[in-house]
């Protein structure tokens, strides 16, 4: 994990300009622009089907925008594969948990360290010397994540057997183990009860504060979003309808319309 850094909001880390995305005839995103600054918690909200997940998928290279430009760390990106985004320091979690179900909690979080492990294949065959040393170093890093998320007790349990809330936590752990600069969270609190939500909020805030990780998140629970995020961007039908600090956005008539219109908060 990174060293604790004081919480300051810095220069622009990610800039999305006029991004559009279409599947066949369906437009998932049209001309969306916004930015994420280093160190902030940025929320993307909007009714179902507004294109929020598609937006995250564009940012980490899973989808290629059909139009527009994404600039990350000052460099405009061409077409890239998700593993290249990962190498650039972007990690994420998923709306429907995407853990490796056949593996234990420990192994799942260890996969988050994958990019930082580079001992060659022959050492791996021996599992000895430098390879073993590397394995232990990363195990220590992973144990720090495990301590941070308070999941010591489930270390060796296959994740398929864990309850939903804990699975979400393990998934966050896997993303954190990569020590990302930009962390994308897709509905980190969906389907959780109040207590689990409070825990998750605390973890998100702690990650942001202690490690200075920039976070972009999608969330449905408006209360939570308005409490924890620095700035909020609102999407509807693939277009941006509002952008600003929580209080501004809350008062925006277009946002109120969008939410009252779908009757969903």
């Amino acid at each position, binding site marked *: 994990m990174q060293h604790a850094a004081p919480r300051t909001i810095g220069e622009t880390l990610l800039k999305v300009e006029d991004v559009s995305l279409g599947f066949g005839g369906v437009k998932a995103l049209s001309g969306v622009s916004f930015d994420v600054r280093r160190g902030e918690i940025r929320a993307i909200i909007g009714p179902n089907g507004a294109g929020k997940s598609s937006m995250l998928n564009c940012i980490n290279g899973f989808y290629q925008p059909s139009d527009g430009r994404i600039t990350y760390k000052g460099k405009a990106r061409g077409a890239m*594969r*998700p593993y290249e*985004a990962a190498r650039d320091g972007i990690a994420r979690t998923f709306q429907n948990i995407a853990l*490796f179900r056949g593996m234990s909690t420990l192994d799942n979080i260890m*996969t988050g360290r994958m990019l930082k492990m580079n001992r060659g294949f022959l050492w791996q065959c021996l599992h000895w010397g430098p390879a073993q040393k590397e*394995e232990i170093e990363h195990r*220590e890093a992973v144990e720090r994540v495990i301590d941070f998320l308070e999941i010591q007790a489930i270390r060796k349990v296959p994740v398929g057997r864990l309850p939903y809330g804990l699975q979400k936590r393990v998934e966050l752990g896997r993303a954190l183990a*990569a020590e990302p600069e930009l962390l994308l969270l897709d509905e980190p609190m969906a389907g959780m009860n109040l207590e689990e939500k409070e825990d998750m909020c605390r973890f998100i805030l702690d990650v942001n504060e202690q490690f200075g990780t920039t976070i972009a998140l999608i969330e449905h629970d408006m209360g939570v979003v308005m409490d924890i995020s620095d700035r909020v961007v609102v999407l509807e039908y693939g277009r941006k309808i509002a952008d600003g600090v929580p209080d501004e956005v809350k008062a925006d008539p277009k946002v109120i319309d969008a939410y009252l219109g779908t009757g969903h908060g």
Partner: protein
Amino acid sequence: MIYREAGQYKTSYAADQAIFPILQDRIGLAILLLVAFVGAPLVASDYILSTILIPFLVFSVAALGLNILTGYCGQLSLGTGGFMACGAYAAYKFATAFPELNIVFVFLLSGGVTAMVGVVFGVPSLRIKGFYLAVATLAAQFFLIWLFTKVPWFVNYSPSGVISAPPRSVFGFYVTGIEATSHAKYIFCLSFVALLALVAKNLVRGRVGRAWMAIRDMDIAAEIIGIRPLHTKLLAFAVSSFYCGVAGALWAFIYTSSVEALAFDINRSFQILFMIIIGGLGSILGSFLGAAFIVLLPILLNAGPTAMGAPLSTSTIAHLELMTFGALIVFFLIVEPHGLARLWQIGKEKLRLWPFPH
């Protein structure tokens, strides 16, 4: 002896990550190795060594290979037989072209050649998955067998199309050819298998193994955390094919001494697949259990009715064998998809808690 881990505190991550963290398991393994290396050669007859133990060891290597690809990396392959043939013929070419070369290196080289062939046939796995890929691996199976049957260069222009293992020795003992005793063959095979199993275990418990399992469990998520899918899959194809190639070479040189390509037809591929399904997908131990099971079952099917005084005709036995295998596959997939290895593990858990039920 009671199976307990209470009181064994692990004080370092190295100890926690050992292959067998529990003391009793380490003792058990030591006994097993002692029995395998010393006990079996002393007790077992030539017949048992050459018709049960040696084939079991050879099959175990092939099962390890397929388990790496299918059980750990999730890429179903029906081309195992083709890759085994590749190893067998490569070994024959190396052994006859370089008579001075130690047979150990011959086998390793033939594994290496097979690994390269495996990578070539693994390339489609970039674009296709699941049964599309399974069908694609059949291309390897049929093409390779055809190649070795039709191109006389591979059999050094022998008119019969059969390759025979030339005599070769290790440390002064013949391990291949007619002068080799089954004891020497067995020990040689066993050493090979023990080393290969250790390497496989090391691979699957480290970074490489985690990358394979990540691809198996959810390839999209794996790519998003930075695992390169093609790289990882091709590595699995290479390692898997290496094992299958060595298994083929051991088959041709140690087990049967002479072989034709048809010994590695599609039924061989299915046989190995059955081993890992019954033994346990994604388990090193399972590869061995499955191999043992499939080697022993036909012998039992043969001996059982005869012992009960109702010997069956060979064709009936062959059909019964097909039916039993088929039924067992379905049974295991339904009841215990992780196979015999999982049953073994459950047994150990029970023993750990014994005599308390929970």
